[in-house]
């Protein structure tokens, strides 16, 4: 990964372009050096050719002179007779008396060379190791070369500084010919032997000047080419490094995106996968292992595992689901069991949806599987518990219904059958009193009347207990009740004939309950209040109420006989009386019925009182949460 990075980094490009610049520089530099070298060679070649031509000219000239055996010239001061020429005909006089002296070839050449050297831009010199004329003596270099010629060397070229100027010196050996022997025969030379050398020195200055000129132009053109190349590389570098930055960014983006995708896909707790159009597994989250025991590779190698994993009993569900959703590329879900590698059974919530690319081509099915074993187990348990509960409720309800039916039958029986004997007792007592009145004394009549009073009381008790029983059995019909109005209506009905009743009814909150039952409550409470106030001079009864928390509390207060708080627990019991029959009549069922009605409404009752100062009976009903309906 790191190596790949280098290809796209700025540093990578710098290195690469550094090398390219170096190679380019070496190439251009090399080319320049090569061209310069060639120029130097051309310069030397040209100089050499000039030198050779010079020497060849001298040799030809000498040859020509030798072929003529010299030339007679008029002796002048500049050209005196050659003192080193030992020939009898050296000096002659023409027939006209003109004096002539023989100029031998060497003399001619030397004169030519010394007199016109500057005209040719060259300095030529004829020399030998065995000199006739000491003026022709070789210098150190010529001496050395002459020796080399004697060893067989054919030609010598060398660049030397002469008088601070560069010169190309060339030297060729001078071969003895027949003509030479005329003058030099006495020295013992033979034809073909090396007798000396001809040297010439060509000034290199003009050649070097030309070479310099060419060099400058070469350097300029090379420089221009080099710069042009560098510019090209620079442009290319800029482009590449920009491109590289873009690529770098693209690569970073890709890596980030890849990372994101892995974070999202791989770190899921659900078992996620993507099946391609040919049924191949394109992606599967590593979480598959936790759920199935199989790793991603196993699934990739064998996509059929997705089917074989499904619990044998749920294969039909899975197949039906696959057929309906996966194959037709529509969304769907199913719940089924799978058997993991180690044989564990898991409940799976399976959801699949088709996936499409941006052009809308179907790319297969994306699946998310969630382990819902815990939920299913809990659900099963809840279902089981509910079933159990329902069964028990049914059982209890049946028991209750049976008890209720028994109770009803009992009440019915009481209602019908218990009254009949009472009527008989009362009726026949009355017949006795009517038909046998003169056979009975006062005590006998009194006793029969006691029988009749108790029968009557017994009848009342039966009526009361039936009424009490009925309040427990009747179904409640709930509605909103204007309690203030209800209390007023009841009070109006119960109002005793003697008008010493002061009734105060405060505005009270409305109640939610069974109207008929509530009416019974007020009947019982108000009639009680009136009853127990009979001994008072002025009867004062107050009805009030208020909302306290989630309850509506009502009370009925009187200034009657009151009661001792230590017996408050007995107050609401069936047939419980706190006063004797002679004080106040009644069976003691009224408050018991009130309590039963209020309890059936989900409320509660309590009382406060003091002997001789009156009693207050409270009852509280649950406040209705929703005010409508």
């Amino acid at each position, binding site marked *: 990964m790191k190596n790949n990075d280098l290809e796209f980094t700025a540093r990578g490009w710098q290195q690469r372009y550094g090398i390219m610049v170096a190679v380019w520089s070496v190439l251009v530099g090399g080319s320049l050096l090569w061209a310069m070298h060639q120029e130097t060679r051309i310069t030397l070649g040209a100089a050499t050719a000039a030198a050779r031509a010079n020497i060849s000219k001298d040799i030809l000239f000498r040859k020509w002179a030798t072929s003529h055996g010299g030339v007679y010239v008029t002796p002048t001061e500049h050209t005196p007779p050659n003192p080193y020429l030992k020939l009898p005909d050296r000096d002659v006089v023409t027939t006209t008396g003109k004096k002539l002296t023989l100029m031998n070839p060497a003399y001619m050449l030397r004169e030519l060379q010394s007199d016109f050297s500057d005209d040719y831009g060259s300095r030529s010199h004829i020399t030998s190791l065995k000199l006739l004329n000491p003026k022709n003596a070789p210098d150190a270099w010529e001496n050395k070369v002459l020796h080399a010629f004697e060893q067989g060397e054919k030609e010598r070229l060398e660049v030397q500084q002469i008088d601070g100027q560069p010169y190309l010196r060339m030297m060729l050996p001078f071969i003895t010919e027949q003509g030479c022997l005329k003058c030099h025969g006495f020295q013992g030379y033979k034809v073909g032997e090396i007798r000396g050398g001809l040297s010439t020195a060509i000034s290199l200055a003009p050649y070097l000047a030309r070479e310099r000129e060419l060099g400058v132009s070469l350097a300029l053109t090379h420089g221009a080419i080099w710069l042009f190349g560098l510019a090209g590389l620079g442009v290319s570098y800029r482009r590449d490094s920009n491109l590289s930055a873009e690529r770098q960014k693209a690569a970073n983006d890709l890596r980030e995106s890849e990372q994101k995708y892995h974070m999202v896909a791989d770190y899921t707790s659900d078992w996620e996968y993507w099946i391609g159009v040919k049924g191949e597994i394109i992606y599967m989250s590593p979480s598959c292992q936790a759920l199935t025991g199989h790793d991603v590779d196993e699934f990739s190698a064998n996509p059929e595992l997705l089917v074989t994993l499904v619990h044998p009993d749920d294969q039909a569900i899975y197949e039906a689901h696959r057929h309906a959703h996966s194959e037709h590329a529509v969304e769907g879900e199913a719940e089924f069991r799978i058997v993991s590698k180690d044989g564990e059974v898991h409940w799976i919530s399976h959801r699949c949806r088709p996936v499409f690319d941006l052009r809308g081509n179907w790319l297969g099915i994306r699946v998310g599987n969630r382990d819902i074993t815990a939920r299913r187990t809990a659900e099963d348990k809840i279902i089981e518990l509910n079933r159990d509960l329902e069964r028990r409720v049914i059982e209890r309800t049946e028991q209750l219904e049976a008890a209720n039916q028994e109770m009803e039958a009992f009440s019915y029986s009481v209602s019908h059958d218990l*009254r*009949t004997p009472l*009527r*008989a007792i009362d009726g*026949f007592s*009355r017949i006795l009193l009517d038909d046998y009145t003169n056979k009975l004394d006062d005590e006998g009549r009194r006793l029969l009347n006691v029988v009749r009073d108790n*029968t009557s009381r017994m009848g009342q008790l039966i009526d009361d207990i039936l009424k009490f029983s*009925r309040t427990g059995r009747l179904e409640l019909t709930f509605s909103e009740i204007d309690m203030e109005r209800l209390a007023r209506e009841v009070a109006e009905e119960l109002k005793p004939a003697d008008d010493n009743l002061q009734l105060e009814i405060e505005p009270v909150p409305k109640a939610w309950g069974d109207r008929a039952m509530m009416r019974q409550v007020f009947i019982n409470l108000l009639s009680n209040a009136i009853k127990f106030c009979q001994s008072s001079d002025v009867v004062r009864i107050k009805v009030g109420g208020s909302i306290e928390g989630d309850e509506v509390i009502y009370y009925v207060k009187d200034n009657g006989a009151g009661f001792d708080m230590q017996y408050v627990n007995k107050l609401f019991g069936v047939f419980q009386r706190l006063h004797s029959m002679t004080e106040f009549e009644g069976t003691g069922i009224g408050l018991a019925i009130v309590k039963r009605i209020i309890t059936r409404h989900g409320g509660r009752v309590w009382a406060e009182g003091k002997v001789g100062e009156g009693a207050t009976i409270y009852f509280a009903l649950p406040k209705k949460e929703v005010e409508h309906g």
Partner: protein
Amino acid sequence: MDDTVKEVEILLVEDNPTDAELAIRALKKSNLANKLVWVKDGAEALEFLFATGAYSERKIGTGPKVILLDLRLPKVDGMEVLRRVKNDERTRTIPVVVLTSSKEDRDVAESYQLGVNSYISKPVEFDEFAKTVSGLGLYWLLVNHPPVAVQ
């Protein structure tokens, strides 16, 4: 018995002899018990009304002017008797007064559903009972005006 000869005015259906005796005594005091037939169960009541069995010589459509019917009866109960009477063209117009110990709302409601003409709960006190029975006897026999067909 010369019940078949006389025109029956009151049919008392009552299984309890003491209640029957008290009722008859009360009616007698008002002189209303002369044309009274007392049957002791529902089955006998139906035989009488539809002139079958022991009463096959009777002619249907000749009274009674009122039926005093208890509900708790042996064999066929009072409610069934009421249903049969009110479901039959020939007996439908005979006024039926349920006279029973029951004050059960259920019984009251059902009786009126079946077409009872009056529902009276027998008071426990004899004075009250006597007053009630003689009162209703007077009302149905003398005050009330029945349809002509019954006569």
